[in-house]
């Protein structure tokens, strides 16, 4: 077996070597600037490339729907889906109500009640997964042209999904809560201890920096603390499964089971703005409801 021996000319070889050297030198000397430049140019390019992605995704969705509606048991599938949606809704409501009750107790005691602002949300559909195996991300069918920007929080009715890390004009990449590079400010709902939720390599999550004196236990729910990042307070992140205490460590950590099954997410809400500051720059204003 011989290969096609399409030999490049000597000039082409030298040009290739020059281009490779220039790119390497560029990324070595000006990494931030070059990344920003390529990301900026990537906006419209991403919009063009998103069309074949949408096309393939819609064909795939069509085949999937045909299969589930006509080949699989239609009634069971529909009933199951309906029940699952109801369960998700109730779980989400339960978490919000618990948080509201807890917040009401504390705030009433302080006689300084402030209504928590409702976030503005953009509904989006999941059209794909990460191109590689190194990150756990999903691709949304809405991007910077729809008002989505990096660092915005992404949720479902059940809880937190992740955080937007990259956008093109028509798509957005969401780093999932189970990715080790993600970090979200979390709060243990029962003990009110704060920490940082990070993903783990096997695809779960871990709450770090829990104070040593905290009486956290398995089964405790962890919600967003609302202090930093694109999330309002009280959105469910996960449930603690095991506590890790190391000898001589300053903090303890806990393994979490994420509330949202990130492998099955199909539709999400992107939190465009958790709060809008008032004219004095301090008070929160009540915002209009979701933009769908």
């Amino acid at each position, binding site marked *: *077996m*011989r*290969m*096609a*021996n*399409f*030999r*490049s000319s000597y000039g*082409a*070889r030298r*040009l*290739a*070597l020059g*281009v*490779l050297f220039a*790119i*390497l030198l560029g*990324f070595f000397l000006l*990494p931030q600037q*070059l*990344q920003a430049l*390529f*990301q900026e140019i*990537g906006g419209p*390019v*991403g919009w*063009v*490339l998103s069309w*074949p*992605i949408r*096309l*393939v*995704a819609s064909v*795939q969705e069509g085949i999937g729907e045909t299969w589930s509606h006509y080949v699989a048991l239609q009634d069971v599938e529909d009933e199951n889906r309906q029940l699952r949606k109801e369960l998700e809704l109730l779980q989400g409501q339960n978490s919000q109500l618990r948080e509201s009750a807890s917040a009401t107790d504390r705030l009433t005691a302080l006689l300084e009640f402030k209504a928590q602002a409702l976030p503005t949300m953009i509904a989006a559909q999941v*059209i*794909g*997964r*990460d*191109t*590689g*195996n*190194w*990150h756990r*991300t999903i*691709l949304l069918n809405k991007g910077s042209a729809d008002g989505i920007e990096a660092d915005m929080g992404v949720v479902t009715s059940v809880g937190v999904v992740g955080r937007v*890390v*990259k956008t*093109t004009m028509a*798509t957005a*990449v969401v*780093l999932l809560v189970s*990715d*080790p*590079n993600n970090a979200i400010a979390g709060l243990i709902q029962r003990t009110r201890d704060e920490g940082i939720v990070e993903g783990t*390599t096997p695809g779960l999550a871990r709450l770090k920096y829990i104070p040593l004196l905290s009486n956290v236990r398995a089964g405790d729910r962890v919600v967003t603390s609302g202090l930093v990042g694109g999330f309002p307070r009280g959105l469910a992140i996960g449930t603690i499964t095991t506590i890790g205490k190391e000898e001589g460590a300053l903090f303890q950590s806990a393994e979490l089971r994420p509330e949202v099954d990130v492998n099955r997410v199909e539709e999400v809400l992107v939190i465009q703005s958790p709060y809008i500051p008032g004219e004095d720059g301090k008070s929160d204003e009540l915002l209009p409801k979701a933009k769908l």
Partner: protein
Amino acid sequence: MKIVVYVCAVAALVAVQITMLPYISVWGVKPDIGLVAVCLIGLLAGELEGLLVGLFMGWAMSLFSAVDLGTSMVAKGAVGFLAGLAGRQVAQVTPLVLIGGLVVASTVASLMTMWSLKPNDQQDSWWMIRTILMPQACFDAVVGGLCYWVIWSRVNLDRLAEGREV
């Protein structure tokens, strides 16, 4: 004309990689068909085309992934360039030789990505090597070998090469 073909190929491969390959992943690992394509283009068309298509492929893939843009571009560009160089040095390319080359190319690209991710500790590094790097290298090699075998059985590459030399 060739540029249009390459751009269309990149667009199609990116779409398939994002939407369809997650469903055929084995143990959560899917092949990088962009890397395989860049390798084949480098082998068949030379180092300049391999490099340029690799850079464009890396850029396009990074737009829809959390992977670092620079690492993605440089890794795929370097693979295309090295495949072109290897194509000139190796007289006889069989699917088995190609499989070996793809294992090396995929491993090099994965090591570059691992380096950019800066794993927390040795345990994380070994976990990445065991569960991502090695299965992906095998997966890429098998997919590339199959693609080459299909191309070779459909198109008489020797005749194409002779035609080009004339």
